[in-house]
């Protein structure tokens, strides 16, 4: 069985992924990725998991290996930025296992490869990538979905790999799928019964977006941190300046808690320092009530207009 999948490789996050597990949401590729190649294999990790020093009950780190356990689902090992080993639990839901492979495992793997994984959605606006970051519930996916509806391509949803080349940050495409909450779908007028629910998140849906996906990396030209205000009022935008930019990027690093645990804080800080001065950042605040994606969108374009005219 393993030999038949050896030849099949998927493309996501700038990686060529050889996987023993089917990853149907990913496009196939026969080319090495910009960031490299990885293998996803099945293996029995029970003994290894027992032996590895734990930093939390569900996370173990030893040298260049990170392991974690998702109860009743699987034990995962991410090694050297090149190999993901998965040991599914008996009767595990494979949709769920796949979510971990494409989320948590990829986040760790990117950090092992010294690529910054930003947590948010990135879209193409005026031929450049812009990242939308923010806490859970801030409205990243809803705004991303609205922008896609307006014809803007998706670069990545959830994990945005950011590479730095000659002091310029570059956003690397994830894979052509968006995760949307029921409420977002209602706002967008989509019929949720057409989409497949994500594991254990009956109200969150996977939406394939093959025709609205950016396939090549683009310069990251700005970051919008989405915030929610309890008060009524218009959508507002403020620049994020000075050292607060470091906080913003650290806070929205995918699985930031792992940065210290795998001993890469110095690298992480240094890589932020190498480009943070050249990356415009803004906080976009919307009122809690109502659907404000159209207002957010016009404010975003008003904000980036000077940058657009420069070119």
């Amino acid at each position: 069985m393993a030999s038949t999948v050896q030849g099949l490789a998927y493309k996501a996050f700038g990686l060529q992924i050889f996987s023993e597990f089917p990853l149907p949401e990913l496009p196939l590729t026969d080319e090495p990725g910009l960031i490299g190649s990885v293998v996803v294999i099945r293996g029995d990790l029970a003994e290894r998991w027992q032996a590895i020093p734990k930093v939390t009950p569900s996370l173990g780190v030893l040298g260049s290996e990170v392991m974690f356990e998702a109860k009743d689902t699987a034990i995962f090992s991410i090694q050297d930025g090149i190999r993901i080993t998965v040991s599914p639990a008996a009767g595990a839901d494979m949709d769920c296992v796949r979510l971990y492979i494409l989320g948590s495992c990829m986040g760790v793997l990117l950090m092992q490869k010294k690529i910054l994984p930003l947590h948010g959605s990135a879209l193409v606006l005026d031929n450049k990538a812009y990242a939308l970051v923010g806490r859970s519930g801030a409205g990243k996916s809803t705004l991303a979905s609205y922008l896609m509806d307006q014809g803007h391509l998706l670069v990545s949803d959830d994990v945005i790999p950011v590479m730095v080349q000659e002091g310029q940050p570059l956003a690397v495409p994830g894979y052509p799928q968006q995760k949307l909450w029921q409420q977002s779908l209602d706002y967008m007028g989509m019929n949720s019964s057409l989409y497949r629910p994500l594991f254990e998140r009956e109200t969150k849906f996977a939406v394939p977006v093959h025709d609205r996906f950016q396939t090549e990396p683009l310069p990251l030209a700005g970051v919008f941190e989405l915030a929610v205000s309890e008060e009524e009022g218009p959508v507002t935008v403020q620049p994020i300046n000075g050292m607060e930019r470091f906080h913003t990027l650290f806070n929205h690093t995918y699985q930031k808690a792992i940065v210290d645990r795998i001993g890469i804080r110095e690298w992480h800080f240094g890589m932020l320092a190498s480009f943070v001065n050249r990356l415009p950042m803004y906080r976009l605040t919307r009122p809690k009530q109502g659907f404000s994606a159209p207002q957010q969108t016009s404010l975003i374009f008003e904000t980036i207009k000077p940058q657009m005219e420069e070119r």
Partner: protein
Amino acid sequence: MNTADVLSLQTVLVKRPGNIASDMDGEKVMLNVKNGKYYNLGEVGGEIWSALDEPVSINRIVQVIQETFDVPAETAEQDVFEFVQSLLAEDLVAIDSGS
């Protein structure tokens, strides 16, 4: 006791551990891992921070700044004292008790 009262050119300072410094377009930026704060030390501050790689007297730091930036001793002394006060206030350095 106010540290300002005890600082002299002979005072020897040591870095507190747990800080990560990096270069940002010619300015030194720093992260204190313990308190999670980020600092911009600037260009002069960066030089002072580098001079503190080993326990060193304020007098020696003043010399380094004077030479590096080609400024009068008085200016260098004032800048160094001011900056060192902020480093002490943020607990990023300590007065070497061995001195």
